């Protein structure tokens, strides 16, 4: 055993542990498979550190409590899956419109509608394109291991506070339910701006107003251009990705979340046979690491996107790569028994290279 503190936990538990380490003060949520370990863990552990856990009557209530808590300047979060995340979209839109931070964890299950509890990546568009109304974006982080479920949850809190916008940890039922050995890294020290905008009761002092209603002449348009600039700053400073064996690759596979793990083993199998293939994994889905794709595709012209859907991220890949790059797609829409195996993805690599 190493001297570092290692734990063998479910991905969902890693999220909950990271939230406490990040200093979350309030959790509001409602149970739904495959993410219920998050509220279960926090219902037990959050009160012990002085935090507040509330199982709300609905997902709509939960996200609006996150909005309220966040408006008061405290770190707040919620988590859900599929149908529950859809219910939260109105609240997320209001948070975006009010420039409020807050963390939403989405452990994707299959859909549409009630769907099923199997792993899915079909909520990519909903997460990355602004799932509610009004033309906003939120930060979307895509872990691919128990360790990243932990680390990226902490990062979500910091980025959310820094850029004053909601942040989502977008994972799936494989990552939520799988147990892995993780290191309990301490919360990073980040210089975050003070929340001078928070409504905490004036006590006779300055009055703050948190709202998403902009009726003044030109006020709404100004808000949109301000946020547009903020999204650009986010893309410039916070785009994150991981490359594996891309330097001499003649084909680059790209996938996020649990699919990237399966793809990596497939890439290793291909390399063992001398096939020059690499892996590009976006860690931030918004901002999508466009520049990294553009740079890589200046020398590698063959791409294969793999997703647990009929194809969503592939749209962003096609927009980001050089115009003469060819992007193929292999998808396994969600459902029981639909997880691809490394052997299956290896066969796809051989087909496209």
């Amino acid at each position: 055993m190493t001297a570092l503190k290692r734990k063998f936990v479910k991905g969902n538990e890693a999220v909950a542990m990271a939230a406490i380490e990040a200093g979350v003060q309030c959790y509001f949520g409602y149970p739904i498979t495959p993410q219920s370990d998050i509220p279960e863990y926090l219902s037990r552990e959050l009160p012990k550190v002085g935090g507040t856990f509330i199982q709300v009557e609905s997902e709509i209530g939960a996200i609006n409590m996150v909005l309220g808590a966040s408006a008061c300047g405290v770190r707040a979060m919620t988590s859900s899956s599929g149908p529950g995340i859809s219910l939260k979209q109105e609240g997320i839109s209001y948070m975006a419109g009010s420039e409020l931070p807050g963390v939403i964890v989405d452990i994707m299950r299959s859909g549409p509608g009630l769907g099923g509890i199997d792993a899915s990546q079909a909520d990519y568009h909903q997460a990355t394109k602004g799932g509610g109304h009004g033309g906003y974006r939120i930060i979307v982080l895509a872990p691919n291991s128990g360790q990243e479920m932990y680390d990226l949850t902490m990062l979500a809190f910091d980025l959310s506070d820094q850029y004053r916008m909601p942040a989502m940890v977008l994972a799936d039922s494989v990552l939520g339910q799988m147990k892995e050995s993780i290191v309990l890294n301490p919360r990073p020290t980040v210089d975050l701006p003070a929340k001078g905008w928070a409504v905490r009761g004036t006590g006779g002092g300055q009055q703050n107003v948190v709202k998403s209603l902009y009726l003044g002449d030109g006020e709404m348009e100004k808000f949109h251009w301000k946020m547009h600039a903020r999204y650009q700053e986010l893309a410039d400073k916070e785009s994150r990705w991981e490359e594996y064996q891309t330097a001499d690759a003649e084909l680059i596979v790209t996938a996020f979340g649990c699919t990237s793990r399966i793809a990596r083993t497939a890439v290793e199998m291909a390399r063992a046979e001398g096939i020059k293939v690499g892996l590009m994994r976006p860690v931030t889905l918004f901002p999508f690491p466009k520049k990294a794709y553009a740079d890589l595709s200046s020398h590698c012209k063959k791409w294969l996107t793999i997703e647990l859907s009929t194809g969503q991220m592939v749209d962003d890949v096609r927009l980001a790569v050089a115009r003469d790059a060819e992007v193929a797609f292999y998808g396994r829409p969600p459902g029981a028994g639909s997880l691809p195996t490394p052997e299956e993805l290896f066969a796809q690599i051989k087909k496209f290279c």
Partner: protein
Amino acid sequence: MRYDVFCAGYGGQGVLLAGNLLSYAAIREGKNVSFFPAYGVEKRGGAAMCTVVFADGDTGSPVVGEPSVSVILNQLSFDKYAAKVKLGGICLINSSLVELDGGALDGRELLAVPMNQIAIELGDVRMVNMVACGAYAAATNALAMESLQEALKDALPERNHKLIPANIKAIQAGAAAVFSARKA
């Protein structure tokens, strides 16, 4: 080195606890581990499966299409998954519940251990998963017996620690059964 093992049975046989025990043993040996469970919504009687991968470095895919080793505890799992074991791999079966019909798996070692019978002789059929874990360690040498026995403290809740000595016996009996099966 990267090891992978697929365990399958029906709900109630302790397949997930077996996977957890192997995982904790690997952690005790300083490995990185992924444990990927899949099971039916039923508390008992549905299908229960898990894949454990452990390695010094990256564990890679938590999903394994062709396992190096499969531990098969019932007939349904045998019919469905035994043939997926990769060439040169090991298929360890609970011969108390699996009819082999004299069949063999080409290019793979088929190890038959009467796991239920051994567990019953030790006093409780519920220890079938422990017999399976001991058999796995002996068949593969992927994990030391000591790690497995020590890991019981991690895998079992405190209230069940009184059962550790009995479980150690079951693990040892599983290992012994593999040695005699290979001699035969």
